[in-house]
Protein backbone atom coordinates (compact mmCIF):
# COMPACT_ATOMS: atom_id res chain seq x y z
CA UNK A 1 0.00 0.00 0.00
CA UNK A 2 1.43 3.32 -1.12
CA UNK A 3 0.22 5.60 1.70
CA UNK A 4 1.78 8.67 0.15
CA UNK A 5 -0.16 8.10 -3.07
CA UNK A 6 -3.37 7.55 -1.10
CA UNK A 7 -2.77 10.82 0.72
CA UNK A 8 -2.26 12.71 -2.56
CA UNK A 9 -5.49 11.19 -3.90
CA UNK A 10 -7.49 12.06 -0.79
CA UNK A 11 -6.25 15.67 -0.79
CA UNK A 12 -6.99 15.93 -4.49
CA UNK A 13 -10.52 14.62 -3.96
CA UNK A 14 -11.03 16.91 -0.94
CA UNK A 15 -9.95 20.10 -2.73
CA UNK A 16 -11.90 19.17 -5.85
CA UNK A 17 -15.05 18.88 -3.67
CA UNK A 18 -14.28 22.15 -1.85
CA UNK A 19 -14.03 24.06 -5.12
CA UNK A 20 -16.83 22.31 -6.97
CA UNK A 21 -19.51 22.40 -4.25
CA UNK A 22 -20.16 26.17 -4.41
CA UNK A 23 -19.53 26.25 -8.17
CA UNK A 24 -21.89 23.29 -8.62
CA UNK A 25 -24.64 24.94 -6.55
CA UNK A 26 -24.41 28.26 -8.43
CA UNK A 27 -24.36 26.63 -11.88
CA UNK A 28 -27.04 24.08 -11.03
CA UNK A 29 -29.47 26.75 -9.71
CA UNK A 30 -29.01 28.83 -12.84
CA UNK A 31 -29.60 25.84 -15.10
CA UNK A 32 -32.58 24.61 -13.08
CA UNK A 33 -34.55 27.87 -12.80
CA UNK A 34 -33.27 30.44 -15.22
CA UNK A 35 -34.43 30.58 -18.80
CA UNK A 36 -31.71 32.37 -20.75
CA UNK A 37 -30.35 32.36 -24.27
CA UNK A 38 -27.75 29.68 -24.78
CA UNK A 39 -28.98 27.62 -21.83
CA UNK A 40 -28.86 24.44 -23.92
CA UNK A 41 -25.31 25.25 -24.91
CA UNK A 42 -24.35 25.85 -21.27
CA UNK A 43 -25.85 22.51 -20.28
CA UNK A 44 -23.97 20.76 -23.06
CA UNK A 45 -20.75 22.44 -21.97
CA UNK A 46 -21.21 21.21 -18.38
CA UNK A 47 -21.90 17.68 -19.65
CA UNK A 48 -18.95 17.67 -22.06
CA UNK A 49 -16.39 16.09 -19.67
CA UNK A 50 -18.67 13.04 -19.39
CA UNK A 51 -17.89 12.09 -22.98
CA UNK A 52 -14.55 13.84 -23.47
CA UNK A 53 -11.65 11.38 -23.62
CA UNK A 54 -9.33 12.11 -20.66
CA UNK A 55 -6.33 12.13 -23.00
CA UNK A 56 -7.91 14.95 -25.04
CA UNK A 57 -8.25 17.07 -21.92
CA UNK A 58 -4.72 16.03 -20.93
CA UNK A 59 -3.39 17.17 -24.27
CA UNK A 60 -5.10 20.56 -24.12
CA UNK A 61 -3.95 21.09 -20.55
CA UNK A 62 -0.35 20.27 -21.49
CA UNK A 63 -0.58 22.95 -24.18
CA UNK A 64 -2.42 25.50 -22.02
CA UNK A 65 -0.21 25.01 -18.95
CA UNK A 66 2.99 25.52 -20.94
CA UNK A 67 5.06 28.64 -20.25
CA UNK A 68 4.25 29.94 -23.73
CA UNK A 69 0.45 30.26 -23.16
CA UNK A 70 -1.50 32.84 -21.14
CA UNK A 71 -2.67 30.39 -18.43
CA UNK A 72 0.84 29.10 -17.91
CA UNK A 73 2.29 32.62 -17.96
CA UNK A 74 -0.33 33.93 -15.55
CA UNK A 75 0.43 31.07 -13.14
CA UNK A 76 4.15 31.73 -13.49
CA UNK A 77 3.54 35.40 -12.65
CA UNK A 78 1.29 34.47 -9.71
CA UNK A 79 3.39 31.76 -8.08
CA UNK A 80 6.72 31.72 -9.89
CA UNK A 81 6.16 28.04 -10.63
CA UNK A 82 4.64 25.93 -13.38
CA UNK A 83 1.37 23.99 -13.56
CA UNK A 84 2.58 20.87 -15.33
CA UNK A 85 4.04 18.31 -12.86
CA UNK A 86 2.36 19.97 -9.85
CA UNK A 87 -0.52 19.18 -7.51
CA UNK A 88 -2.22 22.45 -8.53
CA UNK A 89 -2.08 21.32 -12.15
CA UNK A 90 -3.80 17.99 -11.53
CA UNK A 91 -6.30 19.79 -9.27
CA UNK A 92 -7.32 22.09 -12.15
CA UNK A 93 -7.66 19.03 -14.41
CA UNK A 94 -9.74 17.32 -11.75
CA UNK A 95 -12.06 20.33 -11.29
CA UNK A 96 -12.75 20.54 -15.04
CA UNK A 97 -13.28 16.82 -15.29
CA UNK A 98 -15.71 16.58 -12.39
CA UNK A 99 -17.94 19.49 -13.32
CA UNK A 100 -20.82 17.29 -14.58
CA UNK A 101 -20.59 15.02 -11.52
CA UNK A 102 -21.06 18.02 -9.25
CA UNK A 103 -23.62 19.95 -11.29
CA UNK A 104 -26.00 17.29 -12.57
CA UNK A 105 -27.23 15.73 -9.28
CA UNK A 106 -27.70 19.25 -7.85
CA UNK A 107 -29.55 20.44 -10.94
CA UNK A 108 -32.00 17.52 -10.71
CA UNK A 109 -32.51 18.28 -7.01
CA UNK A 110 -33.22 21.99 -7.59
CA UNK A 111 -35.52 21.19 -10.52
CA UNK A 112 -37.56 18.95 -8.21
CA UNK A 113 -38.35 21.86 -5.85
CA UNK A 114 -41.82 23.22 -6.84
CA UNK A 115 -41.80 26.90 -7.76
CA UNK A 116 -44.74 27.49 -5.35
CA UNK A 117 -42.55 26.51 -2.40
CA UNK A 118 -40.05 29.27 -3.20
CA UNK A 119 -42.84 31.78 -3.87
CA UNK A 120 -44.38 30.93 -0.51
CA UNK A 121 -41.04 31.54 1.15
CA UNK A 122 -40.68 34.96 -0.50
CA UNK A 123 -44.29 35.88 0.49
CA UNK A 124 -43.41 35.06 4.10
CA UNK A 125 -40.81 37.81 3.85
CA UNK A 126 -37.68 35.67 3.47
CA UNK A 127 -34.90 37.17 1.37
CA UNK A 128 -33.44 35.25 -1.56
CA UNK A 129 -30.46 34.37 0.62
CA UNK A 130 -32.64 33.14 3.52
CA UNK A 131 -34.82 31.18 1.10
CA UNK A 132 -31.71 29.50 -0.24
CA UNK A 133 -30.43 28.50 3.21
CA UNK A 134 -33.74 27.58 4.87
CA UNK A 135 -35.80 26.19 2.01
CA UNK A 136 -33.85 25.31 -1.11
CA UNK A 137 -30.74 23.74 0.39
CA UNK A 138 -32.59 21.48 2.89
CA UNK A 139 -34.80 20.26 0.03
CA UNK A 140 -31.85 19.76 -2.31
CA UNK A 141 -29.75 18.10 0.40
CA UNK A 142 -29.77 14.55 -1.12
CA UNK A 143 -28.62 16.03 -4.43
CA UNK A 144 -25.76 17.82 -2.68
CA UNK A 145 -24.59 14.66 -0.91
CA UNK A 146 -24.77 12.76 -4.22
CA UNK A 147 -22.76 15.45 -5.98
CA UNK A 148 -20.03 15.43 -3.33
CA UNK A 149 -19.88 11.62 -3.12
CA UNK A 150 -19.67 11.21 -6.90
CA UNK A 151 -17.05 13.95 -7.29
CA UNK A 152 -14.95 12.49 -4.48
CA UNK A 153 -15.03 8.92 -5.79
CA UNK A 154 -14.53 9.97 -9.38
CA UNK A 155 -11.43 12.00 -8.45
CA UNK A 156 -9.88 9.01 -6.68
CA UNK A 157 -10.15 7.03 -9.90
CA UNK A 158 -8.85 9.68 -12.27
CA UNK A 159 -6.08 8.28 -14.40
CA UNK A 160 -5.62 9.43 -17.97
CA UNK A 161 -5.31 13.17 -17.35
CA UNK A 162 -3.08 12.72 -14.32
CA UNK A 163 -0.83 10.35 -16.25
CA UNK A 164 -0.42 12.95 -18.99
CA UNK A 165 0.24 16.11 -16.98
CA UNK A 166 1.43 14.76 -13.61
CA UNK A 167 4.79 13.07 -14.10
CA UNK A 168 4.23 10.55 -11.30
CA UNK A 169 6.03 12.49 -8.54
CA UNK A 170 5.70 10.91 -5.09
CA UNK A 171 3.80 13.12 -2.67
CA UNK A 172 2.88 15.60 -5.41
CA UNK A 173 1.24 14.05 -8.49
CA UNK A 174 1.47 10.30 -7.94
CA UNK A 175 -2.14 9.42 -7.13
CA UNK A 176 -3.35 6.02 -6.00
CA UNK A 177 -4.63 5.17 -9.48
CA UNK A 178 -1.18 5.91 -10.93
CA UNK A 179 0.45 3.93 -8.12
CA UNK A 180 -1.69 0.89 -8.99
CA UNK A 181 -0.67 1.19 -12.64
CA UNK A 182 3.02 1.48 -11.72
CA UNK A 183 2.81 -1.52 -9.37
CA UNK A 184 1.11 -3.65 -12.05
CA UNK A 185 3.83 -2.72 -14.53
CA UNK A 186 6.49 -3.63 -11.97
CA UNK A 187 4.83 -7.07 -11.46
CA UNK A 188 3.96 -6.28 -7.86
CA UNK A 189 0.49 -7.86 -7.81
CA UNK A 190 0.22 -7.85 -4.02
CA UNK A 191 0.50 -4.07 -3.68
CA UNK A 192 -1.69 -3.46 -6.74
CA UNK A 193 -4.27 -5.84 -5.28
CA UNK A 194 -4.36 -4.10 -1.88
CA UNK A 195 -4.80 -0.66 -3.39
CA UNK A 196 -7.43 -1.92 -5.83
CA UNK A 197 -9.48 -3.46 -3.02
CA UNK A 198 -9.40 -0.13 -1.18
CA UNK A 199 -10.65 1.76 -4.25
CA UNK A 200 -13.29 -0.90 -4.85
CA UNK A 201 -14.57 -0.43 -1.29
CA UNK A 202 -14.67 3.36 -1.65
CA UNK A 203 -16.60 2.98 -4.93
CA UNK A 204 -19.10 0.63 -3.29
CA UNK A 205 -19.67 2.99 -0.38
CA UNK A 206 -20.18 5.91 -2.78
CA UNK A 207 -22.72 4.05 -4.88
CA UNK A 208 -24.43 2.94 -1.66
CA UNK A 209 -24.75 6.55 -0.51
CA UNK A 210 -26.01 7.84 -3.87
CA UNK A 211 -28.57 5.07 -4.40
CA UNK A 212 -29.64 5.08 -0.77
CA UNK A 213 -30.45 8.78 -1.01
CA UNK A 214 -32.25 8.35 -4.31
CA UNK A 215 -34.40 5.61 -2.77
CA UNK A 216 -35.21 7.70 0.29
CA UNK A 217 -36.17 10.64 -1.86
CA UNK A 218 -38.61 8.48 -3.81
CA UNK A 219 -40.10 7.43 -0.49
CA UNK A 220 -40.83 10.96 0.69
CA UNK A 221 -42.42 12.25 -2.52
CA UNK A 222 -45.45 14.38 -1.58
Amino acid sequence: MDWEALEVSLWLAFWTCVVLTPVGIIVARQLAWRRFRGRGFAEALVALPLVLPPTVLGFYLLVAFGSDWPIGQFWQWLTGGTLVFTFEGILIASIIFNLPFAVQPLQRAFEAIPHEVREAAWCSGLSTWQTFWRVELPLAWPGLISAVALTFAHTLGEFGVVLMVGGSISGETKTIAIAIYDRVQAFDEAAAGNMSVLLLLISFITIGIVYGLAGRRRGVRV
Partner: protein
Amino acid sequence: MIALLVTGPAQAQRPPTVAAASDLQFAIEDLAARFTEETGQRVRLNFGSSGNFRRQIAQGAPFELYMSADEAYVEALYESGHLEDAGDLYAVGRVVLITRQGASLDPEAGLAALAGALEAGEIRRFAIANPEHAPYGVAAKQALQSAGLWEVIQPHLVFGENVSQAAQFALSPDADGGIVAWSLALAPSLDRRSDWALIPEDHHEPLRQRMALVKGAGETARAFYDFILSDPGRAVLAEYGFITPDPD
Protein backbone atom coordinates in the same frame (compact mmCIF):
# COMPACT_ATOMS: atom_id res chain seq x y z
CA MET B 1 -24.93 -6.49 -42.16
CA ILE B 2 -24.38 -7.32 -38.48
CA ALA B 3 -22.26 -10.29 -39.46
CA LEU B 4 -20.14 -7.95 -41.54
CA LEU B 5 -19.61 -5.63 -38.59
CA VAL B 6 -18.66 -8.47 -36.30
CA THR B 7 -16.07 -10.05 -38.56
CA GLY B 8 -14.41 -6.67 -38.99
CA PRO B 9 -11.69 -5.91 -41.49
CA ALA B 10 -10.40 -8.63 -43.82
CA GLN B 11 -10.04 -11.43 -41.33
CA ALA B 12 -8.13 -13.70 -43.69
CA GLN B 13 -5.23 -11.39 -44.47
CA ARG B 14 -4.62 -9.81 -41.06
CA PRO B 15 -1.09 -8.44 -40.87
CA PRO B 16 0.78 -9.76 -37.80
CA THR B 17 1.01 -7.51 -34.74
CA VAL B 18 4.39 -6.55 -33.32
CA ALA B 19 4.82 -5.53 -29.67
CA ALA B 20 7.78 -3.14 -29.59
CA ALA B 21 9.39 -1.20 -26.76
CA SER B 22 8.76 2.53 -27.04
CA ASP B 23 12.41 3.39 -27.70
CA LEU B 24 11.90 1.70 -31.10
CA GLN B 25 9.06 4.03 -32.04
CA PHE B 26 10.84 5.69 -34.96
CA ALA B 27 13.37 3.03 -35.93
CA ILE B 28 10.82 0.24 -36.35
CA GLU B 29 8.38 2.44 -38.26
CA ASP B 30 11.18 3.06 -40.71
CA LEU B 31 12.08 -0.65 -40.80
CA ALA B 32 8.46 -1.68 -41.35
CA ALA B 33 8.05 0.77 -44.22
CA ARG B 34 11.14 -0.64 -45.95
CA PHE B 35 9.98 -4.19 -45.28
CA THR B 36 6.65 -3.43 -46.97
CA GLU B 37 8.49 -1.83 -49.87
CA GLU B 38 10.65 -4.90 -50.39
CA THR B 39 8.19 -7.70 -49.80
CA GLY B 40 4.74 -6.16 -50.20
CA GLN B 41 3.82 -7.58 -46.78
CA ARG B 42 2.60 -5.42 -43.91
CA VAL B 43 3.03 -5.60 -40.16
CA ARG B 44 1.08 -3.73 -37.47
CA LEU B 45 3.13 -2.00 -34.81
CA ASN B 46 2.23 -1.50 -31.16
CA PHE B 47 4.47 0.59 -28.92
CA GLY B 48 4.54 0.60 -25.15
CA SER B 49 6.59 -0.40 -22.17
CA SER B 50 8.40 -3.73 -22.45
CA GLY B 51 7.10 -4.84 -19.06
CA ASN B 52 3.52 -4.22 -20.05
CA PHE B 53 3.89 -6.26 -23.24
CA ARG B 54 5.53 -9.08 -21.30
CA ARG B 55 2.44 -9.26 -19.11
CA GLN B 56 0.05 -9.12 -22.06
CA ILE B 57 1.88 -11.88 -23.95
CA ALA B 58 1.91 -14.06 -20.82
CA GLN B 59 -1.87 -13.62 -20.76
CA GLY B 60 -2.23 -14.69 -24.39
CA ALA B 61 -2.36 -11.34 -26.20
CA PRO B 62 -2.33 -11.93 -29.99
CA PHE B 63 1.17 -10.55 -30.69
CA GLU B 64 3.39 -12.49 -33.06
CA LEU B 65 6.70 -10.73 -32.45
CA TYR B 66 7.97 -9.28 -29.16
CA MET B 67 10.76 -6.70 -29.27
CA SER B 68 11.81 -5.86 -25.74
CA ALA B 69 14.16 -3.17 -24.47
CA ASP B 70 15.27 -5.54 -21.72
CA GLU B 71 16.37 -9.07 -22.51
CA ALA B 72 15.31 -10.30 -19.07
CA TYR B 73 11.64 -9.99 -20.10
CA VAL B 74 12.21 -12.13 -23.19
CA GLU B 75 14.08 -14.73 -21.14
CA ALA B 76 11.25 -14.86 -18.60
CA LEU B 77 8.62 -15.40 -21.31
CA TYR B 78 10.77 -18.07 -22.92
CA GLU B 79 11.07 -19.88 -19.59
CA SER B 80 7.29 -19.81 -19.17
CA GLY B 81 6.86 -21.33 -22.64
CA HIS B 82 5.17 -18.45 -24.46
CA LEU B 83 7.89 -17.94 -27.09
CA GLU B 84 9.17 -20.12 -29.92
CA ASP B 85 12.80 -19.82 -28.78
CA ALA B 86 15.10 -17.59 -26.75
CA GLY B 87 15.17 -15.18 -29.69
CA ASP B 88 18.01 -12.92 -30.80
CA LEU B 89 19.81 -9.90 -29.51
CA TYR B 90 18.94 -7.26 -32.13
CA ALA B 91 20.29 -4.04 -30.63
CA VAL B 92 22.13 -2.47 -27.73
CA GLY B 93 20.72 0.89 -26.68
CA ARG B 94 22.45 4.04 -25.49
CA VAL B 95 21.11 6.95 -23.47
CA VAL B 96 21.51 10.70 -24.02
CA LEU B 97 21.25 13.80 -21.90
CA ILE B 98 18.63 15.87 -23.72
CA THR B 99 17.25 19.41 -23.38
CA ARG B 100 14.85 21.62 -25.27
CA GLN B 101 16.65 23.85 -27.77
CA GLY B 102 17.66 27.06 -26.06
CA ALA B 103 17.44 25.65 -22.53
CA SER B 104 19.97 26.90 -20.01
CA LEU B 105 21.57 23.49 -19.58
CA ASP B 106 24.08 22.52 -22.27
CA PRO B 107 24.05 18.73 -22.81
CA GLU B 108 27.44 18.87 -24.58
CA ALA B 109 29.08 19.56 -21.22
CA GLY B 110 27.62 16.28 -19.96
CA LEU B 111 26.52 15.22 -16.50
CA ALA B 112 29.13 17.55 -14.97
CA ALA B 113 27.11 20.49 -16.33
CA LEU B 114 23.99 18.95 -14.80
CA ALA B 115 25.75 18.79 -11.43
CA GLY B 116 26.64 22.49 -11.72
CA ALA B 117 23.12 23.46 -12.74
CA LEU B 118 21.66 21.49 -9.82
CA GLU B 119 23.99 23.27 -7.40
CA ALA B 120 23.10 26.65 -8.87
CA GLY B 121 19.39 25.82 -8.42
CA GLU B 122 18.75 26.10 -12.17
CA ILE B 123 17.01 22.73 -12.47
CA ARG B 124 13.29 22.73 -11.72
CA ARG B 125 12.25 19.45 -13.29
CA PHE B 126 14.30 16.65 -14.84
CA ALA B 127 12.61 13.78 -16.69
CA ILE B 128 13.50 10.09 -16.85
CA ALA B 129 11.46 6.95 -17.54
CA ASN B 130 10.14 5.21 -14.44
CA PRO B 131 13.02 3.02 -13.14
CA GLU B 132 10.51 0.73 -11.44
CA HIS B 133 9.52 -0.86 -14.73
CA ALA B 134 11.12 0.85 -17.75
CA PRO B 135 14.56 -0.43 -18.84
CA TYR B 136 15.62 3.05 -19.98
CA GLY B 137 14.57 4.39 -16.61
CA VAL B 138 16.92 1.90 -14.95
CA ALA B 139 19.76 3.02 -17.24
CA ALA B 140 19.04 6.69 -16.50
CA LYS B 141 19.08 5.99 -12.77
CA GLN B 142 22.40 4.13 -13.08
CA ALA B 143 23.91 6.99 -15.10
CA LEU B 144 22.84 9.52 -12.46
CA GLN B 145 24.22 7.26 -9.73
CA SER B 146 27.56 6.94 -11.58
CA ALA B 147 27.78 10.73 -11.69
CA GLY B 148 26.92 10.91 -7.98
CA LEU B 149 23.75 12.90 -8.71
CA TRP B 150 20.99 10.45 -7.80
CA GLU B 151 20.43 11.78 -4.27
CA VAL B 152 20.64 15.46 -5.25
CA ILE B 153 18.29 15.18 -8.21
CA GLN B 154 15.53 13.23 -6.37
CA PRO B 155 13.31 16.26 -5.60
CA HIS B 156 13.47 17.39 -9.22
CA LEU B 157 12.62 14.13 -10.99
CA VAL B 158 9.48 13.56 -13.04
CA PHE B 159 8.80 10.08 -14.33
CA GLY B 160 7.53 9.14 -17.77
CA GLU B 161 5.47 5.98 -17.90
CA ASN B 162 7.78 4.83 -20.68
CA VAL B 163 10.81 6.38 -22.35
CA SER B 164 8.74 8.15 -25.03
CA GLN B 165 6.73 9.99 -22.40
CA ALA B 166 9.98 10.79 -20.58
CA ALA B 167 11.25 12.42 -23.79
CA GLN B 168 8.02 14.39 -24.16
CA PHE B 169 8.35 15.59 -20.54
CA ALA B 170 12.06 16.40 -20.98
CA LEU B 171 11.30 18.72 -23.92
CA SER B 172 8.25 20.38 -22.35
CA PRO B 173 8.65 24.06 -21.46
CA ASP B 174 8.30 23.16 -17.78
CA ALA B 175 11.28 20.81 -17.56
CA ASP B 176 14.97 21.54 -17.89
CA GLY B 177 16.03 18.30 -19.52
CA GLY B 178 16.11 14.56 -19.09
CA ILE B 179 17.82 11.29 -19.88
CA VAL B 180 16.19 9.29 -22.69
CA ALA B 181 16.96 6.76 -25.42
CA TRP B 182 19.42 7.84 -28.09
CA SER B 183 17.11 6.26 -30.69
CA LEU B 184 14.40 8.81 -29.84
CA ALA B 185 16.78 11.80 -29.88
CA LEU B 186 17.85 10.86 -33.42
CA ALA B 187 14.28 10.93 -34.74
CA PRO B 188 13.75 14.03 -36.92
CA SER B 189 10.69 15.20 -34.97
CA LEU B 190 12.72 15.31 -31.74
CA ASP B 191 16.08 16.27 -33.21
CA ARG B 192 14.62 19.53 -34.54
CA ARG B 193 13.50 20.64 -31.09
CA SER B 194 16.33 19.45 -28.89
CA ASP B 195 20.00 19.54 -27.99
CA TRP B 196 21.49 16.29 -26.78
CA ALA B 197 24.73 14.47 -26.09
CA LEU B 198 25.56 10.83 -25.48
CA ILE B 199 26.18 9.65 -21.95
CA PRO B 200 29.31 7.45 -21.75
CA GLU B 201 28.60 3.74 -22.13
CA ASP B 202 30.33 2.82 -18.89
CA HIS B 203 27.83 4.89 -16.84
CA HIS B 204 25.18 2.18 -16.95
CA GLU B 205 24.61 -1.51 -17.62
CA PRO B 206 24.32 -2.18 -21.36
CA LEU B 207 20.71 -2.04 -22.59
CA ARG B 208 20.66 -5.39 -24.32
CA GLN B 209 17.50 -5.54 -26.40
CA ARG B 210 16.22 -8.95 -27.38
CA MET B 211 13.34 -10.02 -29.61
CA ALA B 212 11.59 -13.34 -30.14
CA LEU B 213 8.69 -14.83 -32.07
CA VAL B 214 5.64 -15.64 -30.01
CA LYS B 215 4.36 -19.22 -30.25
CA GLY B 216 2.11 -19.60 -33.27
CA ALA B 217 3.67 -16.68 -35.20
CA GLY B 218 2.85 -16.67 -38.92
CA GLU B 219 4.95 -16.40 -42.07
CA THR B 220 4.89 -12.61 -42.32
CA ALA B 221 6.13 -12.19 -38.73
CA ARG B 222 8.97 -14.62 -39.48
CA ALA B 223 9.93 -12.72 -42.61
CA PHE B 224 9.94 -9.43 -40.70
CA TYR B 225 12.06 -11.00 -37.95
CA ASP B 226 14.63 -12.12 -40.52
CA PHE B 227 14.52 -8.70 -42.20
CA ILE B 228 15.39 -6.95 -38.90
CA LEU B 229 18.46 -9.20 -38.53
CA SER B 230 19.51 -8.80 -42.19
CA ASP B 231 22.18 -6.29 -43.22
CA PRO B 232 19.72 -3.65 -44.52
CA GLY B 233 17.68 -4.05 -41.33
CA ARG B 234 20.70 -3.63 -39.10
CA ALA B 235 21.77 -0.59 -41.13
CA VAL B 236 18.44 1.09 -40.26
CA LEU B 237 18.84 0.28 -36.56
CA ALA B 238 22.38 1.69 -36.68
CA GLU B 239 20.99 4.92 -38.18
CA TYR B 240 18.86 5.29 -35.08
CA GLY B 241 21.78 4.94 -32.74
CA PHE B 242 21.49 1.28 -31.90
CA ILE B 243 24.64 -0.77 -31.71
CA THR B 244 23.80 -3.88 -33.71
CA PRO B 245 25.47 -6.95 -32.30
CA ASP B 246 26.16 -10.14 -34.23
CA PRO B 247 23.11 -12.37 -33.77
CA ASP B 248 23.73 -15.05 -31.16
